[in-house]
């Protein structure tokens, strides 16, 4: 065996491109970029088999900064380019990088259909609840009442809930993390990469220029644990810096309880990431009314679109034999024109 055949162990540096990263100083995107670059060496793909596809927006600058293959595509259309690529070359690790504007405005339609098909790809949606690239207009995830450059009196629209939309569209892996919690983000991205089928990761991302206060204490290392529940499969939903709070079901309604005399850990919901019903319930609990859920909300093993497609092709070939274009052409109704 020559040294040329020993696979090199990739490191984060292998995924750093030669481009100068151009986001605003302090932007949450830097953290997401770093975590993805850290995650990729361990996902079991060769560098040349990894593709990043984006649409339009600040997040969509991503492919330039990755030393992988990449496409900076059309506003909202990244999931469609990714679908075409992932179906025709199932051996690739395909990543869609999008934002709340790109993925849920003009791309909302494509988002739904990508989630329901279960093609093997990963969708990472940076949610900062604002249009950053056009300098501060409200987005489909902006809170009702959000005052922005295009909603000076406050937005009158109902925001999209990305994880709820992904779930109800039929996604087989739905998760959430946040830019400021780098360890959690890295772990969540690794789980998304390991999932077979479409993985959805919503990342709460801080736009420090146009919407700096959106995530409030979630972005503050000292305060965040009182406002976040880290979901772990099979574990009760305890949260708080002192692990003294939790979520229990009061009838059908989840509620935050203080652990102590009245309630113990045994009263809390135990997270089951295979339960779609629980995932629906969790997805409907929105921060800041409830602590923000982070981690894998839902995961389901299901054949991918490509697998089912290949099954159909095999079935057709088994019953009718391998196709021949010439035979097919001459088997149809033909007319002889005198």
């Amino acid at each position, binding site marked *: 065996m020559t040294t040329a055949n020993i696979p090199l162990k990739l490191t984060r540096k292998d995924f750093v491109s030669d481009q100068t990263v151009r986001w605003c100083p302090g932007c949450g995107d830097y953290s997401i970029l770093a975590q993805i670059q850290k995650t990729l060496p361990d996902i079991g793909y060769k560098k040349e088999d990894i593709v990043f596809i984006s649409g339009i927006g600040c997040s969509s600058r991503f492919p330039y900064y990755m030393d992988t293959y990449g496409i*900076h595509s059309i506003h*909202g259309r990244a999931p469609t380019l990714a679908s075409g690529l992932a179906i025709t070359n199932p051996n690739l690790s395909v990543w869609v990088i999008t934002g709340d504007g790109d993925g849920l405005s*003009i791309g909302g339609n494509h988002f739904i259909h990508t989630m329901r098909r279960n093609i093997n790809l990963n969708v990472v949606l940076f949610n900062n609840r604002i249009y950053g690239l*056009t300098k501060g207009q409200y987005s*489909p995830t902006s809170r009702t009442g959000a005052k922005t*450059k*295009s909603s*000076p009196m406050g937005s009158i629209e109902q925001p999209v809930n990305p994880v709820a939309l992904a779930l109800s569209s039929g996604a087989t892996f739905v998760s959430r993390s946040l830019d400021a919690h780098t360890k959690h983000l890295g772990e969540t991205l690794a789980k998304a990469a390991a999932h077979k089928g479409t993985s959805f990761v919503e990342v709460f991302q801080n736009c420090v220029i146009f919407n700096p206060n959106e995530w409030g204490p979630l972005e503050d290392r000292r305060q965040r644990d009182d406002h976040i529940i880290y979901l772990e499969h099979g574990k009760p939903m305890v949260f708080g810096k002192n692990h003294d709070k939790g979520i229990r079901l009061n009838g059908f309604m989840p509620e935050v309880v203080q652990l102590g005399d009245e309630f113990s850990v045994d009263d809390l919901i135990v997270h089951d990431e295979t339960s779609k019903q629980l995932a629906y319930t969790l997805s409907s609990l929105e921060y800041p009314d409830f602590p923000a859920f982070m981690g894998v909300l839902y995961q389901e093993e299901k054949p991918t679109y490509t697998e089912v497609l290949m099954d159909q092709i095999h079935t057709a070939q088994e019953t009718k034999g391998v196709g021949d274009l010439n035979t097919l052409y001459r088997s149809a109704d033909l007319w002889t024109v005198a």
Partner: protein
Amino acid sequence: MAKELLKGNVAIAEAAIRAGCQAYFGYPITPQTELLEHMSKRMPELGRTFLQAESEVAAVNMVYGAASAGVRVMTSSSSPGISLMQEGLSYIAGSEVPAVFVDVMRGGPGLGNIQPSQSDYNQVTKTAGHGDYRPIVLAPSTIQEAIDLMVLSFDLAEKYRTIVFMVLDGAIGQMMEPAELPPMRELPTERPSWALTGKGNRDKNIVTSIRLGAQPLADFNDILQEKLAVIEKNELRYDELYTDDAELVIVAYGTAARVAHTAVKHLREENIPVGLFRPITLWPFPYQQLGELADRVSTFLSVEMNAGQMIHDVRESVGRQAEIEFLGRPGGIIPLPEEIEEKVRDMWRQKNLAAQIN
């Protein structure tokens, strides 16, 4: 009203409001976004409709819906966004409802960039969607002219029940200039007779672009062509500078015409008899007027902020015997006066040389 220092996009939005725009639907895109932002502030306080759509596709169809109800409505965008609107534009044209579009053009094709450009000349003047129709296309070269043409846009749209485009490049959208806004007009108190307002006692109104059967669609197209012929006759607008004694004429519109104007003034100081012909309506295009100029001028220079789009209409106007040269900067670059001057000097030298040889 006194002159104020106004930013192009904001001036256009305010002019539309004062012209009586009752509803605005749009989507943020550079270099047009300030127009949408001004609308978001002003429309609610005047009791009018503003909605930030989820895309340009949504916006154009919201315009279609409001226009069908006889509401004075507009949208604005920039080149890639206008590309997204093509389907809706064609349906609006087929339905003959009035609608006003502002296109603050940027460099293309594709995402291109956000620099000033005249990349959409073909897109907006050669139908803007499928089918046989043309929108009226107005091209201002100053902020004052943009204000005036914005008001005119609504009048023309309603008069002819047609699409009116005002196209400008990102430079006019982004720069500031002293200009005077018009007074606030009264809003119409009644909806047009063809609008969908609830039938009541009148006959049923139908707004549609569907005409099944070959003959009904052919008949409708005949009517549409007759209307376009009337627009061509009545709504031509253009400007001429120093063309009376010109032996060489620059054809340019928008920002390119401003730059050409500077170049012409400098060249006149060098006694080079150059003039400027500036189409204000890109459709209808002043074919005949430019053609008449070609009866006494044999040399033309088309200056555009693209790779050469209007030049084909210039060629059609002046005929095969005239000499036409092109100076254009695609990719979002504004040509400098010096570049135009150098080009014209060169053309003038060649022309004199040719005259000596002959």
